[in-house]
Every structure is written in structure tokens, then in C-alpha cells.
């Protein structure tokens, strides 16, 4: 691949360098260095595109991996620059094959091969348990929905998959689904990422996802109208279970947005709406800012990841939450670790788990 073919010329041409994206970027906020801002990275990509900077240049690779890929720069961009695509293209060129960071190679092949799929088969047998009778939701008439189970979630948080299936009655959980390819696309293998998403998209029906990262990736390949987040699917079904009570008072519940769900899918009001029915919703300051999990980022750049999440710890410490809700498994892993290290008592749960809990409480005498 020659330097001029890495990026889509039109996408790269959209940026007019206005700088509106700078204050939204977590890595720019950390450093104050324009090289680690969205506009700076786009300038760098242009220099690569023009052959002025080598794509494997050390400083250029550093920026390619320092970016969280959180896409917080997208909704604030008046020119509509598709930054998420551009950074995927850059990584695709920088991380191809042997240059891919060692630590994520096993992860990708893990997601790629059959192992997870077999594992998923076992999980799905659990997932088929019948929903609680006081189920909050009944399938909308004539709906044709399939639940897409994120790889990361299936292996780390199988309870989330079960809770999602249980609280979305009528949803189909295909036996043979593979990885959606988000992991590949975000880590330097755009082609494979697209191929895997395409396989999912070839199935009929609306794809429901419990992972913001997967949802945004599939939507980019299959179209936004083919994919909904769990919260959207739940709200479509109408009724929600009543509040979760703790010592007789409604539970205090906060949310950590998923970057790709918020910035890539435009879903941020829906999970809040669901939570408001389940207890006393508390807006965590900076809920929309990246938690530093950022897919494989927390694995590859642990120190930076912790610097990114640091302001949240201070914000959470004063809120005294009962639950901190997440809507993406990467965030779940990150926030569990963060809260444990900070010795905060809030329980980190996926939205689906919280809904299942509320439904179970409603059913209990």
C-alpha cells in the first residue's frame, strides 16, 4: 500500500482545521500538545498522505496508538469529519501484520477462531432460560430481532448476555454468530473487520447489541438502521420494571457512557431514560468522557488509560452511588478495576443486568 492510498481522500479533505474538536479530546486535555489532538492527528495523516512523513515514523506511530479511538471529536465537528474511519485507516497501515502490538495479537486470533464460538454455544444454553414472568418487556409485534453477543462480553461477562436475552423476550440468539470484527477494525485490520461485520449483517432482522463498540462498528458496515442498542430495543418494548429499592429508598444509579455508543451511534439519552425508571438517576460529571478502556487501549497503554480515567474517580467519590451502569463490556472491565482500586462501594453492572435485577425484584414477593 502506498502512502497516498491509506486514507479516503474525501474523508481526509473534510477537515478545515477549525480546532473545535480540541477541547473534547481526552489526549489533548491530558497533554495540551496539539500533536495529540484530533486536528493534529489529521494534519499528521495529511503529511503521511502527501509522503512528507513516513507512516512508520516513531512519532507518527506514537500518535496512532496514543489516540483512544473514542470518537469524542466527531459529534462536535461542524464539518462532519469521520475521524473514526481515519484513525482505523491509520492503524490499518501502521499495525498490519508483524507490526501489530504483541499484546493484542492473541486477542484478535482468539476472536477470529472457533474457540469463542464454541464457548458462546455453551453460554447460549444458559441464555435460553425463560424470562421472569414479571418481565418488563414483551417483544414488539412482528419484530425480527437478533441479539448480537460481543466476544469480549461472552468471555468476560457471560451474565450480561444472559440478562440481555432474558429481558428482551422473543429475541433470537443465533447459535453460529462469530465476532463482529470491531476488535479487528479498531486494531489495524479494517478488511477483516468489515468482512466479519458483513457476515452478521447478511442475516435478516434488526441486530440488537449490548456493546457500544460492536454496535457502532456493525452500523458503520451495515447501516445505522440495521442496528440498535439494548436500551433502544428495551424502550421500544414499552414498559419497564419499577424502581430497585435499597433500605426502602430508590437506588442511586449513575451511568458511564460508552464512547462509541454515544459518539458513533448517537445513543446517550436512552440508557438514562431506562435508568430513571429503575431508580434515582444521578448524572456523573463527565459521564460522556472516555473511561480509558477504549477497546484494547487499557491493555496496550495502561498508564495513559489510568491518566484518562483519573478525573472520574474524584467525581465518583463524592456521589455515593449504589450502582454505576455501563453499556459496553470494555468499560465494565475498566470501571470495575477503577472502583476497586479507589475502594468505592458502587457496584458496576451492565444496563441489562440492572434491568434483570429490577425485574427479579418485581417478581419477588
Amino acid at each position, binding site marked *: 500500500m502506498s502512502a497516498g492510498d491509506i486514507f479516503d481522500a474525501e474523508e481526509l479533505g473534510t477537515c*478545515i482545521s477549525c480546532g*473545535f474538536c480540541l477541547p473534547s479530546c481526552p489526549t489533548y486535555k491530558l497533554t495540551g*500538545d496539539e500533536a495529540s489532538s484530533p486536528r493534529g492527528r489529521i494534519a499528521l495523516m495529511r*503529511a503521511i498522505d502527501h509522503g512528507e512523513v513516513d507512516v512508520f515514523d516513531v512519532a507518527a506511530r506514537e500518535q496512532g496508538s496514543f489516540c483512544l479511538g473514542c470518537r469524542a471529536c466527531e459529534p462536535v465537528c461542524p464539518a462532519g469529519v469521520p475521524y473514526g474511519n481515519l484513525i482505523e485507516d491509520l492503524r490499518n497501515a501502521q499495525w498490519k501484520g508483524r507490526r501489530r502490538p504483541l499484546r493484542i495479537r492473541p486477542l484478535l486470533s482468539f476472536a477470529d477462531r472457533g474457540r469463542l464460538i464454541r464457548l458462546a454455544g455453551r453460554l447460549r444454553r444458559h441464555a435460553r432460560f425463560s424470562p421472569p414472568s414479571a418481565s418488563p418487556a414483551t417483544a414488539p409485534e412482528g419484530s425480527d430481532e437478533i441479539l448480537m453477543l460481543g466476544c469480549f462480553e461472552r468471555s468476560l461477562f457471560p451474565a450480561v448476555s444472559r440478562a440481555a436475552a432474558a429481558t428482551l423476550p422473543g429475541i433470537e440468539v443465533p447459535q453460529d454468530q462469530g465476532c463482529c470484527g470491531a476488535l479487528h477494525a479498531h486494531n489495524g485490520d479494517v478488511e477483516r473487520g468489515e468482512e466479519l461485520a458483513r457476515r452478521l449483517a447478511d442475516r435478516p432482522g434488526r441486530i440488537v447489541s449490548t456493546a457500544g463498540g460492536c454496535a457502532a462498528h456493525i452500523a458503520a458496515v451495515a447501516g445505522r438502521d440495521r442496528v440498535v442498542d439494548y436500551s433502544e430495543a428495551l424502550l421500544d418494548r414499552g414498559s419497564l420494571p419499577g424502581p430497585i429499592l435499597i433500605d426502602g429508598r430508590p437506588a442511586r444509579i449513575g451511568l458511564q457512557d460508552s464512547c462509541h455508543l454515544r459518539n458513533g451511534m448517537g445513543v446517550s439519552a436512552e440508557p438514562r431514560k431506562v435508568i430513571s425508571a429503575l431508580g434515582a438517576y444521578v448524572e456523573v460529571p463527565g459521564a460522556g468522557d472516555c473511561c480509558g478502556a477504549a477497546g484494547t487501549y487499557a491493555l496496550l497503554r495502561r498508564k495513559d488509560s489510568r491518566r484518562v480515567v483519573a478525573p472520574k474517580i474524584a467525581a465518583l467519590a463524592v456521589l455515593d452511588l449504589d450502582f454505576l451502569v455501563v453499556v459496553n463490556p470494555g468499560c465494565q472491565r475498566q470501571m470495575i478495576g477503577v472502583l476497586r482500586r479507589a475502594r468505592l462501594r458502587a457496584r458496576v453492572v451492565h444496563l441489562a443486568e440492572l434491568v434483570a435485577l429490577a425485574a427479579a425484584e418485581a417478581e419477588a414477593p
Partner: protein
Amino acid sequence: MSTLATDAAPSLGADLGRIVGAPNVETRPAALVPYRTDATFGFSGIPWAVVRPGDTEEVSRVLRFANDRGIPVVPRGAGTSLAAGAVPTHGGIVLALTRMNRIASINPIDLTAVVQPGVTTQDLARAVAEHRLYYPPDPGSQRVSTLGGNVATNAGGLHGLKYGNTAGYVLGVEAVLADGQVIRAGGQLLKDVAGFDLVRLLTGSEGALAVLTELTLALRPAPATRTTGLAYFADLKAASNAVRGVVAAGILPATLEFLDAKCIRAVEDYAQLGLDTDAGAMLLFGDDGSAAEVERTVAEIADLMREFGATSAQVATAAAESEALLSARRCALPALSRLGGATMLEDVGVPRSLLPELVRRIDEIADESGATVATFGHAGDGNAHPVGCFDPGDHEQRSRVAAAFDDIFAAAVELGGTITGEHGVGAAKLPYLEAQLGSAQMALLARIKQAFDPVGILNPGKLGS
């Protein structure tokens, strides 16, 4: 480019690192790429190093170092200049002031704030709002622009008609001269005539006279309410006539901004506010003050708009709606890139009464040249921003826009106007400056520059060069 580029490079990073600390210096070419440009299309330069000083002392030492060696220094805030003011056209050191971003104090009795230059306009506005105070200058770039950059360019905003531009709010500065000496001018005093008015001189000096390291800014009590309204017109000329009508009726609203049809469509495409995309032009008007007062003024303006030919005029019912309208207006320029990719923008200004004539000539020039030109601006200030939109790869389109802009400059000067109302001269407007100022004034500017910066290291190729 100077030979220093290669001569100085090997030890430059280490030398500067000893002053500001190694992590705050960068000399690797790939890491310098973002500092080649600002928000101006078509201008770039290759810096030798970027330095991020943490305090005045470090700024002073960097300048002394550079001055001794004749290395150019380009002060930089957020790099949102639209006049290539922050572009290192002559190479040298880019002095990025974003690390100096502390609000030192907010004094609700003196109505002042003391800030470092890297504080963003919006951060100050938010911080003073917590004290029920108001910092009025709000350029479209306020989200990101720094106060140092605002003062160095004397930035205007969306409330200029009633509140004036940045210059009206600069009470004092601390500045570092090219040789590293630190001076203080003005301050918290309301009255002070000791010496020439250096505060005023340094305001709008575009980094060519000194580096601003601390600013004492004036605040106002926060108005109780703000309301914004919207009127549509058949064309920009009708809209600018209505502006005349409002001012002639003795009303000086806080906001009077206009957008032409192309801008309305670009903004609507981005912000989806339900704007009327069939309208030929739109006026955004608004006022602030006590609730009763604002309600009356805004209703009165809406009536005047209709009287002067508005096809419709309505007033926002909720604060959020007002804010959405204003922020949409702030996005007009970047949103316009949706029309072609690259944008070249002008900043011409005329006395308010001549705005309809200026707008008529802009339209005429654009039509004749066949270039795509969209116009928005601060109608109340007589300041128009015609924007040429083109495909960056298409040289024919680009030169058509450039030719149209030469004519627009000439038209503005002919009407007794200016080639830049608020964005500044930078490298982009320097070639046109003499046409407006004349040779005697150009020579005077050069002598002033010489007095501040005898070696000529500060932002060479810009004002005074």
C-alpha cells in the same frame, strides 16, 4: 527558509529542554506537523521546535535564548487564527502557551479576572458565570480559542454591537519583550495615565511586539436573562436594510448576526435546528438584561424586522433554544466546508450604514467571478465574512475565489472600510495592508516593531515586518 533550520536543529531541542524541561520541547518533524498551520487555508511553515513553557520566567528565558541567536519565535494559543497569524512562515520556535492555563483570580468587587494567556475563552466565561459575572467577548471560536490569542488579535464576538470587542475588556497585561525583559502595563486601576497606552498597543499586536503572559480582564455583572430571535428575508440586502432600521429606531441589541442562504443550509445540515432552508437570508437577533426589558426589546425588534420586509420573525421561547441558535451561528464557518472542502474567508468591515452596499457588491463580485461565495457576519458591527468554498484540488476554482476576494478587499477599502474587522492581518492580509493604511503608516508600524523587537524575532512576516 533560513539556514538556521539545519544549523540550529541538532542542539536546539536540548538547549530548549534545559529551559522548559525535555517533555515540553519537541523537535521531531512528525510531531511538529500540527504546528505548521492554524485555521487558515493555504498557509503553512515548518517550525524547528515547539516549546510549551509553564510560566513567565520560562517564556522570558526562551525569548532571551532565541533573541541572542536570531531565531524566530511564533507565539501560539489554540491556533484558530484565520489570518495565518500563528503560522511559522519563517520557521523558528513555536511558543505554545496552552500549558499556562490557570485562572489566577476572579474579583467580584473590582469586576476583574486575572488569567494566564492559555485559558480558553469559554473556560473563563464559565468560571465567572459561577460568580454571576459575565465576560462578553465571545468569538465564534470561544470553545477553543485562548484569551492570549483573543487579546493578541483583539477578537470580536457575537455580542459586539452592545458590548464591543476584546479591547474594551483588557485592563492590564504582563508581557515579555523579545529580549526577555518582563513589563507590566495597566492593571486593576480604573484610572491610570502614566505612560503611553501600551495595553491598547499590545492588544491586537498579533504576537509581533511581545508575548502576553498574564492578562487582567474586565468583567460585567451577568444579565438576568438573554433571549434570541430569528427573522428570515428574501436576500442579504433586505436583511442588512433591516439592521439599519433597528439601529435607526434607537435600539442597540446585544446580537445582530446574519447568514445568507448557503450558510443557512450548511448550518442546518450540521445542527438540524429546523431552520428555513428556502429563505434567502436570516438575521439572528437577541438582547440581554432584566426579563421585562428583554422581552420588550426583542418583541420590538421582531416587529421592526417584519416592517422592514422579513418574511417571518419569531422569538425563541426557551433559553436552550437561544443557546442552540447562537451555537449554530458559531459553527457557520466550519459547517460551510460541507459545500466544497476548502474554505477561504474574508473579514471585511464597513461603517454599519454602508453594510447593504457592501453586501450588494460582494454578491455582484461573486456572481461575475463564478465562484461559490457564502456570506455571514456580524451585521450589527458592519463586519461581513464572505467565504469562498472550493475543492482544494481544483486550481481553477481556487483562483476564481482568490480573484473575487481581491475585488472584495478593494470594494471594502473604497467604501472607507477595512480589510480585517477582527481576524487580524497575520501573513494572510499583510500584502493588502498598505492599500488601506498608506506608506507613512506602514513605516510607522515598522518603527514601533523595531522599538519592541530590534532583532526581529517575534512573529516575522506578520505585522510590522
